[in-house]
């Protein structure tokens, strides 16, 4: 039925048809509904069943636990800040759902809109990459981020971060992180400080004197106030469960780990990167423990892995196959340095407590260089062999 209808209207979108200009759009929807009937023409006659849609869809599935928990937590933090402590799970979730949904919609509409336009102008098929980016962007935003800022950041990330390089697969920086970085540098007050992480705080709906600071901000504050010990209002188990203020999707270590298991189980994300990010962060934390010059350096190393965007970045951002290192050896180096730099930034520059974003973006830029040296080593092996042979 549906297939017949699509076949009927298809000619109008082909070359010379009435809606030729919408070909890419039509194609995107058609291939969304149906795996196309294209058969192999050259080379291998059979092909693996994997395709980019399935890959991206798997990542979206992996993001869902963190997203759902994030929605719940948005509500929970909001009600806590208002002094309402007996709100039900459903109330919290519903509140968060209504807060987060508009951000998701804005991110997808703006991002996909731009993708469709570029695909059409280039005469390409629409690439599925934004299915994931479009969900990652809301999850790394503070809940009270104004929608127009989300829209502008998304547009910046997609156009400058991705399309000018040639679209998905060609980009140097992770688009979702670029959106967040843009927001951070362009509209700093809306994505830092103590008032943006809990819904309604800026609007003054919350109790007077309630602090909406994230644990990392509290740690930074403890240091600047020259306190004798860290002054954190939440506990380690709060961090693991995720009932703390923070970006929408980043707070729950457990939910992120469920995503990590899905990604590793399906083999979509590189275990090499994920493992080495955590290893890098932990070892860097231990190194600072040894220095022990102030209370932040003395903080247990595993705190770093649980706090802020570390886990979220390690699982969902660092493993982006396009912007990470491509070689297996390179992946270890790349991941390790992300973890190490993130902790370095956090500890050495407490004025900016969240180091993960900058660390990943920095290593995105460094990844090709890492790969270059790994591949060079392969070339040297080949040349050595040649020398031996010609002797």
């Amino acid at each position, binding site marked *: 039925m549906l297939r017949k209808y699509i076949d009927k209207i298809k000619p109008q979108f082909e070359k010379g048809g009435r809606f030729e200009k919408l070909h890419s759009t039509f194609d995107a929807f058609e291939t969304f509904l149906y795996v196309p009937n294209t058969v192999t023409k050259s080379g291998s006659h059979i092909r693996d069943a994997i395709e980019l849609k399935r890959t991206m869809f798997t990542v979206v599935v992996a993001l869902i636990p963190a997203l759902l928990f994030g929605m719940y937590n948005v509500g929970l933090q909001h009600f806590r800040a208002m002094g309402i402590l007996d709100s039900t799970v459903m109330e919290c979730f519903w509140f968060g759902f209504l807060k987060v949904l508009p951000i998701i919609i804005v991110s997808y509409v703006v991002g996909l809109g731009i993708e469709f336009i570029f695909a059409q102008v280039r005469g390409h098929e629409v690439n599925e990459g934004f299915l994931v980016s479009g969900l990652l962007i809301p999850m790394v935003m503070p809940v009270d981020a104004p929608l127009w800022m989300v829209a502008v950041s998304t547009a910046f990330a997609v156009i400058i971060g991705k399309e000018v390089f040639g679209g998905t*697969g060609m980009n140097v920086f992770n688009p979702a992180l670029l959106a967040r970085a843009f927001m951070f540098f362009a509209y700093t007050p809306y994505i830092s400080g103590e008032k943006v992480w809990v819904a309604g705080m800026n609007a003054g709906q919350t109790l007077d004197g309630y602090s909406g600071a994230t644990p990392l901000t509290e740690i930074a504050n403890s240091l600047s106030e020259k306190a004798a010990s860290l002054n954190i209002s939440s506990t380690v188990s709060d961090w693991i469960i995720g009932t703390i203020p923070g970006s929408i999707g980043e707070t729950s270590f457990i939910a992120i780990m469920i995503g990590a298991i899905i990604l590793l189980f399906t083999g979509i994300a590189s275990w090499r990167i994920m493992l080495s990010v955590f290893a890098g962060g932990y070892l860097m934390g231990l190194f600072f423990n040894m220095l022990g010059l102030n209370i932040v350096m003395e903080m247990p190393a595993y705190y770093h892995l649980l706090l802020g965007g570390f886990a979220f970045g390690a699982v969902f951002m660092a493993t982006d196959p396009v912007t990470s290192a491509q070689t297996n050896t390179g992946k270890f180096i790349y991941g390790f340095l992300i973890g190490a730099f993130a902790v370095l930034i956090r500890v050495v520059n407490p004025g900016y407590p969240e180091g993960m974003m900058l660390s990943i973006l920095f290593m995105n830029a460094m990844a090709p260089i890492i790969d270059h040296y790994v591949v060079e080593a392969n070339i040297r092996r080949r040349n050595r062999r040649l020398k031996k042979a010609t002797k």
Partner: protein
Amino acid sequence: MSKVIHLKKGLDINLQGVAEKILTAAPLAQEYALTPDDYIGVIPKLLVKVDDAVKAGTPLFFDKKHPEVLFTSPISGVVTAINRGEKRKILNIVIRPSEEREYEEFNPSKPEELTAESLKELMLKSGLWPFVIQRPYGIIADPKDTPRDIFVSGFDSAPLAADFDFILQNTGDDFAIGIEAIKKLTTGKVYLGLSDESHSKVFSKLEGVVEENTFTGPHPAGNVGVQIHHIAPINKGEVVWTMDVYSLIFLGRLLRTGKLDMSKVIALAGSCVEKPRYYRIISGARVDSILENAIKPLKEGQSVRVISGNVLTGKKIDKETGFITNYANMVTVIPEGDHYEMLGWIAPRLGKFSMSRTYFSWLTPKKSYNLDTNLNGGRRALVMSGEYEKVLPMDIYPVYLVKAILAGDIDKMENLGIYEVIEEDLALCEFVCTSKTEVQKIVRDGITQMIKELN
């Protein structure tokens, strides 16, 4: 000295329709043909006209660049057609076989009596030379060269591939004679790559005559290119030759009898074949001679793809008028995948096979699959990393090589190992690619660029 080399990387694709070890003599085909396009880089110059009578071993054409390399008729008969395409390019030379089999006479000789020169001359004249393939590049060898070594793979690990142990049955000493002879062609060694499941007596007899190495692991362990890489990799400036099992049987037979007898046993396999089994054919036969009544009844709207060769590297041929290519050891018949599948990318798709674990096929490694020719998605820019590396058991970075080729960077290609691969070695990379990149075509383009650049 026999070494055992364990390869871990690669991928075995279990397909339905493995050929049963039953040998059927195929009836004489109505037509036989030689297709110049099957020989990479050859520009054919004709030596026959339509209606000429030919014997098995009569030259049909030669290569413009190497006039000494003759391509001969596999069977006696009459040239019935010389089909041409655009710009009068020769598509194929068709021969209708005669009732009586006639052969060109060549001198039978013993391998030990041969010199490199006399053997080359015999192989060139009889039309066996085109079976000598040179690496780098995977093209017909230049008879003026002396190769560093010669490599032969004694097994095929491709999906549904023919079992060489079975093929070698009833070939007597022909293979051994062929091997003995080609030792004259190189100053180095002749290497024979075997699998841990090769049990043919022919191979065990050759122990000590040639250097035998055993390879274990998934496909492409049987690819001669992979074997070379692990035994004695090709460096810049070196030339090695490869020959397949069939050509050595032909050569042995020629030396023993003085006749070019191109009969060989091939497998007919694939999920669309009613009774997959082995057939004795004469090289170049029209494929309908073995396909008659062999294909399972089709449902309405369904069609099949007939492949001369295996599903990864073979050539698509017409199921009635196509000819089995000269280098093929099998014919595969699988369903065409020219149908739509609603929301297929999100469905569980239990019948589909994937190396990635986004499907469930990895939980049932023994299960065999009925795969069709659907591309399973659209072409994209390369997004995923680490996929190609999993299926290429070589110290090569395939993605970087592919990108160097696309960029036309000759130095990079050379540095990244283009001399060590031909398209079949990276066929699995193409199979697993999420972005559906045409890896084999790219590799061949790269090799063509290299040949142009260096000559």
